[in-house]
């Protein structure tokens, strides 16, 4: 299973996505998601029912009702969108996904191991309750390299973040170098030694 989403067999699929506690990072991703296809959230979709109480609908997205300026997407209806590539949806922590797929050859995103509860009804596969891949009892395909730790990053995704005090590329660097102290000491001792040697050595030079 690769890190990306296996989507090669999706065709004519209907996708309903209900997202809890999601903050999509950039405005661009918002625009991308909400304008993936034309139209608006359909009234017979579970997203509509969900959104009636929790937020307001704009395009294909359901936004949370909150007082801050930040728009948080909590629902997405991509029914009849003929999607073949939904990778960028997973820049956020997705907690609940409903996928209605016409072609049942599709592998659920990240397999059943990514979700606590998986139900199949009426051509829809409902995956609920994202599991934390870092805590899996099943052996992970690979471990985070040295000086980093695993943290979840979407259903079946993980990222390796640097441990405390480690930073930089590949978490190779540790701590802060005391550059001012080192340079200060070196400059001071150079001045002292040079002056000392000048007075004892080169001042005595006889010009032939």
């Amino acid at each position, binding site marked *: 299973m*690769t*890190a990306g989403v296996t989507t090669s067999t999706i065709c004519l699929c209907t996708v309903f996505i209900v997202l809890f506690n999601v903050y999509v990072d950039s405005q661009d991703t918002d625009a991308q998601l909400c304008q993936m296809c034309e139209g608006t959230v359909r009234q017979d979709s579970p997203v509509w029912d969900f959104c009636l109480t929790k937020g307001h609908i704009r395009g294909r997205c359901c936004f949370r009702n909150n007082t801050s300026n930040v728009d948080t997407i909590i629902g997405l209806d991509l029914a009849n969108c003929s999607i073949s590539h939904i990778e960028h949806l997973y820049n956020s922590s997705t907690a609940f996904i409903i996928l209605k797929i016409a072609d049942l050859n599709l592998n659920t995103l990240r397999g059943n191991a990514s979700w606590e509860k998986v139900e199949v009804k009426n051509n829809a596969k409902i995956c609920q309750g994202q599991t934390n891949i870092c805590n899996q009892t099943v052996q992970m*395909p*690979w471990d*985070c*390299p040295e000086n*980093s730790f695993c943290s979840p*990053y979407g259903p079946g*995704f993980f*990222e*390796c*973040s*640097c441990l405390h005090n480690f930073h*930089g*590329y*590949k*978490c*190779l*660097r*540790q*701590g*802060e*170098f005391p*550059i001012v102290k*080192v*340079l200060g000491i*070196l*400059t001071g*001792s*150079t001045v002292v*030694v*040079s*002056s*000392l*040697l*000048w007075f*004892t*050595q*080169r001042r*005595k*030079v*006889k010009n*032939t």
Partner: protein
Amino acid sequence: MWSLYTYHHLLAFLLTFLSYVLLHASRKTFSNVKVSISAQWTPSALQQNGSNSSLSPGETWEENQLFADVEEATLFLGALDSIFLFSYAVGLYISGVIGDRFNLRYVLSFGLCGSAVTEFVFGTLTEWLHFYNVYFYCILWVINGLLQSTVWPCVVAIMGNWFGKSGRGFIFGLWSACASVGNILGAFLASSVLKYGYEYAFLVTSVVQFAGGVVVFFGLLTSPKEIGLRDYSETGLRSVTRDSDSQHPLMNDDEDALCDEYSIQQRDEELEPQPKAIGFLQAFCLPGVIPYSLAYACLKLVNYSFFFWLPFYLCNNFGWKEVQADRLSVWYDVGGIVGGTVQGLISDVLGKRAPVLAISLLLAMGALVGYSHSPNNQLVNGALLATTGFLIGGPSNIISSAISADLGRQGALQNSQQALATVTGIVDGTGSIGAAGGQYLVSLIESKLGWMCVFYFFIIMTGCSVLFIIPLLYREICSLCRDSQARTHQL
């Protein structure tokens, strides 16, 4: 002998010693951070069941793609070593000639400070600016090689000015430990600062080297003549033999003293700003220069391969951490220091250098076989390293220092005194060409055939250096036999 030396001599010894220590420390930094640099230049290698995947976030794990994987980065690092050594070799031929013509102090300070700036740009500035470019690295390393090449001929010439032939083997042997001390210092500096990032290792060593250049500029006296003391110049290579066998050392010194004073007076009268220097080709054709240069080419190859690749070999072959490998590689240099000093002393007592070198090199071939089969035990490995260092580093140090001084002060130079830096430049330059060719070969052999073949290559090279010394060895053994026969006849 020791009453001839003043504290000025000690300071000249220490300052020239320090210059080369700092130079080698910064060179060693590069070889000690190879693992970290190649990690910085490559993305994370994650392979699972034959498929490649990438870690997130990309900025932390995948962003730098200067090389696709560590193997390519290693080949480039080997190429950088070769580039450095080639430009160092070319620079040596030139700098030797320059050093004999210009003020040694200016050339030395310029070389130290210039090289420090180049190293800073190479290692620290590129990392701070996140600018990684293969051609930029190569150009910088060529410039670094040219600038660093100014140092060795100047320091050997200055030492030759201050210290005469008596005890030269011992003093130069002790002094030539500067390269090994520099390696040790560089190893410790790099390993203590490495955790902050390899760019800080480069920062510290280049700033310290720059400071050294400043101190040398303000404090170094290039020759006893500058403060009115006597210069120690010789009139013949045979005077080395005469010294050790001589029944009348005092007469020897008096004779030389007379010659010295006369030549100094002459020079004062002429008021020449620059003493007459030997031509490059003339220096090349001096007796003994070519065989020793070729022998040194083979020997320096082996010596520098250990110098450049040892930490990398220890990490890859035994899986030890880079910091541990850096600390262990110190033992090779310790062996080199002891070897240079002890063998210099023996050759002084004997009056001949070639036999000592030949025996040491033959034993070194055995030591290399032993080291290549070293077990995965740090203690044993360290002991074998020290032995190998003694047997290889010893002759290497002697050829590049005491023998160069011998060659640059021999009888054929009656008319012109300034040949020391030129000859040193030639010997070391040829050595560096050999070492340069070897570096890339080492990384190539290692990637295609493995480390064991690299060791076989070293053994062959050591054997070749013995072959080159054979003519000189033959001559010196004959003269040894003749002298001992003459002594028995006298008795």
